[in-house]
């Protein structure tokens, strides 16, 4: 382990260490980071050992610019506007990875966090190396945030110290917050879309109000209620944010005789309500936060689907492939709520049909 003052080291020397699978500790605009060549398996293995990281925790990587980022991740529209507005800076943007980095750097789901540090030394090093480097805090997992080289050395074992090849000391850094992580993959239609939804016997109404929408829900429930006792009913709800998917579900609940307040299941993922007469159950699910349809299946849909259950699934288009699988067990009513092209704030175009 070699400690050198920042003013006494050249970019070439640092790059040389990284090229030889070395582990370098350098300052950044947020804190001291531990850096290795993110494309080299051996270098990443060394970093894993140093960080004493638990299984399955990915690293984000630092690149020099957006151009370079494009070689490693797919930058969608959302990510592009974030890059344009906020990078370089203390922001890590997660996108779908292109599997061009060493194993274990991307998440198990294949996404990769990218950072463009606002710190010239790090940018110079990446440019010279021509590859991304891992961007992780230099402390071992779950230790104090390192603003000084002493903060790091104090909290690691001799064995860990031996894994460090080079430390660049820039004194005490300003105590800034670590970078904020934001995930842009939830917007990625390529991953999420599971094919077009074809609806038979398509119907359409223009709802003028919350009450209108809830009444439609009630009418639809009454129309399909007769299938209960034989099959479940799935109301698959599709529509942009704020369109009124939860409002529709409130209408369903009223029709089913549920007195409890229906609230958004976005955070909880799933909320179950039993009707007053205990004859049926409403399962309210939100797929908005789900990245894969297996997360939907993991909720235990198999166990809940019965001739007494009514499902209201928000953001159903994200898991439409899985929903279709329940065609035998359930009547699937596909409902699409849209903002029509009008100035009437409360108007919604609602179309529906059976899958």
């Amino acid at each position, binding site marked *: 382990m070699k400690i050198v003052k920042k003013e006494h080291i050249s970019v070439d020397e640092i790059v040389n260490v990284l090229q030889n699978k070395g582990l370098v500790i350098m300052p950044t605009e*947020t804190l001291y980071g531990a850096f290795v060549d993110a494309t080299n398996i051996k270098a990443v293995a060394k970093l894993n050992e140093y960080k004493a990281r*638990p*299984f*399955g925790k990915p*690293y*984000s*990587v630092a690149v020099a610019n957006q151009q370079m980022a494009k070689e490693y991740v797919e930058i969608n529209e*959302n*990510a592009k*506007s*974030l890059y344009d*507005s906020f990078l370089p800076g203390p*922001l*890590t*943007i*997660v996108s779908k990875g292109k599997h061009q980095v060493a194993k274990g750097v991307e*998440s198990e789901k294949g*996404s990769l*966090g990218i*950072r463009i540090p606002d710190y010239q030394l790090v940018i110079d090093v990446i440019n010279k190396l021509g590859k991304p480097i891992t*961007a*992780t805090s230099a402390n071992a*997992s*779950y230790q104090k*945030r390192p603003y000084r080289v002493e903060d790091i050395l104090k909290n690691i074992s001799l064995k860990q110290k031996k894994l460090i090849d080079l430390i660049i000391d820039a004194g005490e850094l300003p105590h800034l917050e*670590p*970078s*904020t*992580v*934001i*995930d*842009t*993959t*939830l917007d990625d239609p390529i991953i999420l879309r599971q094919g077009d939804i074809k609806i038979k016997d398509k119907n359409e109404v223009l709802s003028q109000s919350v009450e209108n929408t809830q009444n439609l829900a009630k009418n639809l429930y009454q129309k399909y209620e007769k299938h209960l006792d034989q099959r479940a009913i799935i109301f698959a709800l599709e529509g*942009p*944010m*704020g*369109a*009124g998917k*939860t*409002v529709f579900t409130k209408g369903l609940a009223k029709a089913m005789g549920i007195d409890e*307040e229906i*609230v*958004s299941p*976005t*955070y*909880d*993922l*799933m*909320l*179950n309500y039993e009707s007053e007469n205990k004859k049926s159950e409403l399962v309210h699910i939100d797929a908005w*936060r*789900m990245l894969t349809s*297996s*997360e939907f299946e*993991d*909720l*235990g849909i198999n166990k809940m689907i019965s001739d007494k259950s009514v499902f209201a699934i928000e953001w159903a288009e994200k898991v439409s492939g899985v929903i279709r699988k329940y065609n035998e067990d359930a009547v699937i009513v596909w409902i699409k709520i849209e*903002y029509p092209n009008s100035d009437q*704030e409360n108007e919604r175009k609602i179309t529906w049909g059976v899958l």
Partner: protein
Amino acid sequence: MKTDINTKILAIDTSCDETSAAVTQGVRILSNIVWSQASLHAEFGGVYPSLAQREHKLRIDWVINKAIQNSKIEFKNLDAIAVTVGPGLAIALGVGIDKAKELATKFNKPIIEVNHIEGHLLSPFARSRNEQSLIVDNQFPALGLVVSGGTTQIILAERLGKYKILANTVDDALGEALDKGARLLGLGYPGGAILERIARDGKKNSYLLPIPMLGRENLNRFSYSGLKTALVRLVEKIKKEKGQLSQTDIQNLAFVYQDAAFTHLIRVLTYIIHNSNIKINDLFVGGGVGANVYLRNLLRKMAREENLTIHFPYSKILFGDNAAMIGVTAYFSYQRRNYLKSKEISKIDRSPKFRIDSI
């Protein structure tokens, strides 16, 4: 029986996205491990929330071992094991409960069942490992405000363990509203933290968004879905006029959106304080949104005007989901002898919609 300030508890929380374990001694935190990107430990990079049960299963042993290791307490020296039984996602809660039962049986320890919302509510009682002054004044009856991704509640705490819900959301929770607002502004997910950061450069009144339930605070309800829809409409309008949002637009919209959301919160809270039959002197604040500095400043200002003493958790990690708050809450339950001996633990079950007023 030991009910002193040195009661040592291993606490486990797997109610939603985070897998967390902590060791507490009375109200002092000996260790608090949270596996999550939203925590302090997120460092530069991270994972996004993994929601599935198997993710909790993969992490739980590591998280518990780390909590034990950092606390320097051995399993055999623990007084009890605490676990969150609800509210939360059933399959996720199950992972923590099963693990708590397994450990309780193995080491012959009692289990304390904890309500996650009570954990947030009592999180301001938590103290650091080295804290010397551990005297808890009698601050009850007190008001509690729990604001997180899934909860927006004003709670009357008559005393420890006895609560009434005074106001609740009828649609979206505050944290969810902030995350979704951030998403509408193209700020990714989870966006609450970045929304706050960006809003710092926004201007008040630069755009007009409706304050939810204005003039209807007497209904004791929170509602955020209408505000979200108003933001959708406003963003559409600006995009139609200008093609896309500029950085200044994003900053301004972030400010006015956050400001409208918080104004609604404070207005309902103030209404309840003004109309309470019981003299309230203290306000406890917990939950992830409490980490928002702008909100804390608004709450402090309100508390000054209303002559209330306001209590926040002492550290940022205690705002989000974490097991230390579960340990502290369990300590108070343990003092009231509210626990199950290791032979009785088969009774313990997950309670996905566990309300704080039904403890």
